[in-house]
């Protein structure tokens, strides 16, 4: 259902990644791991055009986009098929938790405010923040903010949820609740592509783990294979490093 072909991106002379192919099946949970600065986040951001790739092809369901001559309507269509969870949450600071979640339904989907708020309240219950709807982001903990960030992405029933290091800015005490919510989504077979440094997540929740280094997918497979019988030297080195850390 998600098909990425030959995706390449450079910033000036600096090639971030090139020739990347990726297929994700309906309901599949893919973890993208690798050292910092290898283009994982940029790759993720290229999928919903927060960054524009230089060449390649992205298809989600019936929406197929050739990135170098994507029209505005294509980009919008693609974005409406995907949800994005940011490392720094990026909640709308002037809106309550409830409004953050309802905003997409109202502005993008054209729902009536009442209906959107009802739906947002359901989602708040779902993410365990039923009593925090009237709180502004500034009054929420990091973990709560990130859960609202996930709720905002969930509200639009995206086919594919993209997570950009969703727990990296969190104090250790809040990581667990965010991972628990992601696991909850995984159990519902929400299709997800997760850039993460949480090896526990990659090992226990993902269906597939991809190791990215120097702008390429170096190795991929089921978590068990990746974590116990890695072939690539860089991957083994990387796994050793994250283990000690």
């Amino acid at each position: 259902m998600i098909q990425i072909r030959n995706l390449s991106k450079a910033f000036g002379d600096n090639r971030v990644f090139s020739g990347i192919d990726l297929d994700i099946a309906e309901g599949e949970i893919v973890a993208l791991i690798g050292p910092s600065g290898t283009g994982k986040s940029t790759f993720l951001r290229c999928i919903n055009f927060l960054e524009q790739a230089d060449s390649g092809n992205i298809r989600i369901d019936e929406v197929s986009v050739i990135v170098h001559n994507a029209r505005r309507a294509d980009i919008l269509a693609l974005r409406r098929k995907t949800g994005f969870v940011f490392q720094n949450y990026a909640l709308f600071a002037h809106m309550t938790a409830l409004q953050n979640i309802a905003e997409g339904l109202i502005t993008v989907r054209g729902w009536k405010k009442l209906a959107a708020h009802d739906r947002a309240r359901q989602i708040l219950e779902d993410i365990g923040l039923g009593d925090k709807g009237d709180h502004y982001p500034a009054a929420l903990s990091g973990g709560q903010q990130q859960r609202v960030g996930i709720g905002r992405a969930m509200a639009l029933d995206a086919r594919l949820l993209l997570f950009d290091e969703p727990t990296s800015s969190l104090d250790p005490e809040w990581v667990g609740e965010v991972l628990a919510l992601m696991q909850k989504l995984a159990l519902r077979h929400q299709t997800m592509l997760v850039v993460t440094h949480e090896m526990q997540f990659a090992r226990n929740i993902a269906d597939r783990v991809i190791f990215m280094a120097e702008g390429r997918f170096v190795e991929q497979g089921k978590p068990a294979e990746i974590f116990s019988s890695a072939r690539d030297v860089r991957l083994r080195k990387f796994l050793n490093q994250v283990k000690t850390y």
Partner: protein
Amino acid sequence: MGFDLQYMLSLMPILFRYLGITLGMACWGLVFSLILAVVLALVRVYRLPLLDQLSQLYISFFRGTPLLVQLFLLYYGLPQIIPLFVGLDAFTAAVIGLSLHFAAYKAESIRAAIIGIDRSQREAGLSIGMTEMQAMCRIILPQATRVALPSLMNYFIDMIKSTSLAFTLGVAEIMAKAQMEASSSFKFFEAFLAVALIYWGMVLLFTQLQNWAEARLNRAYNQ
């Protein structure tokens, strides 16, 4: 000699009758300068080719020359060059001049406020499928308004006081009336003190309004 309090108090109701003209100029000026300022700021934020350079030139000119000179250029100068301006009445000319002048200042503080809003919120808006325009109107501008409000309010206060320059174009506002009364009674101190007090009172009133608006817009941030 000596201070004639009675006379000053008796002037107040006379001056108040012209307050509408002063406030009218200030309010129309506020509306038009804000609209123009937002347009100028957006042109600069998005770096629209050519328009960006033009708005930089515009801002540079209107910040770089005195308001009084601009008003004279507009009211006494332009009609000689462009026939369209011949029938321009003084009130309208003052509103246009004030709007053009203060838009230049406001554009810069609005631009700074927009740039100051965390970029990732714009991206978050786009990521849920908003258009660039929706993200600007729903996410960025409401927050930029809060940031820009104190300086916008300063410019508005400045503009209220600057409406007094309109009397040099012949607009019968409170300053003009005070001047007229003073020259017939020769009680300059009382007349100008009266008008000063009225300006001060207006500014206090709007400052109060500003405090209220700031408290409202800050709700999301102080918990």
